[in-house]
């Protein structure tokens, strides 16, 4: 498990911002920490020579999803917060999952191959040749899900 100093700095920022996003008292600061988390993951993608993916991560996650969450925070706030001190089981289970994952990662004898760099042209070619039909299906799924969200919000309560 070797990495240079930049990787471990990014690791520390990712995990710290994830914990702050869950534990910060102010929900607004939690949202800011969430933006930091998503931007750092985009940095991981940029560091792996995947600039298109990093840009999409920044645009959709750090941009779109965060704006949605900020609107929700402004509309409803944190109307309910469970009292702290009852999270021991969750901490134990998540630590068990972490240990099991790391053990499986080392025991499965995955080799570190040299990292490849894909050009944008090759990425687009594979996307169109192999996944164009799936993209059409996904378009219908997107339309259906957005229609469902609209129906959920605008549906009036029926008289009994």
């Amino acid at each position, binding site marked *: *498990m*070797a*990495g240079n100093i*930049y*990787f471990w700095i*990014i690791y520390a920022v*990712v*995990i710290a911002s*994830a*914990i702050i*996003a*869950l534990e910060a008292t102010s929900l607004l600061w*939690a949202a800011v920490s*969430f933006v930091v*988390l998503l931007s750092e*993951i985009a940095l*991981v993608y*940029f*560091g*792996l*020579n*995947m600039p298109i993916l990093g840009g999409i991560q920044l645009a*959709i*996650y750090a941009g*779109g*999803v965060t704006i949605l*969450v900020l609107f*929700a*925070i402004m*509309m*409803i706030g*944190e*109307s*309910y*917060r469970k009292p702290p001190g009852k*999270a021991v*089981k*969750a*901490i134990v*289970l*998540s630590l068990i*999952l*972490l240990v099991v*994952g*790391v053990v499986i*990662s080392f025991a499965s004898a995955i080799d*570190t191959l040299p990292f*490849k760099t*894909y050009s944008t042209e*090759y*990425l687009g070619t*594979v*996307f169109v040749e*192999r996944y164009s039909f799936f993209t059409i299906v*996904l378009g219908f799924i*997107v339309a259906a899900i*957005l229609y469902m*969200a609209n129906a*959920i*919000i605008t549906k009036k309560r029926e008289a009994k």
Partner: protein
Amino acid sequence: MLLEADIHAYLFLSFSLFAVGVYGLLSRKSVIRMLFAVEMIINAANINFVIFSAQRNVDGEIFTFFTIGLAALEAAVGLAIVIVFYKRFGEVIPSKIKNLRW
């Protein structure tokens, strides 16, 4: 390359983020934070896709595009449900969302 790390280090990052997400989902502090936790779990899966894609073939990177899009939709629908629940009941308690039917 700026980031020099082997695959086990990236997998450790992914598993750590997944563990934090599971903790956030199970401790259930509020609905918005549960949504944060779900997004963390999805991002951990995305890192797995991307790191194996960087070593083997480009399909994992393309699948991550789809995953990011669907995660944004999931956030939209989740927040829509939360806002409707707030309009209906005045507060959003995670364990009471089974009462959403009207």
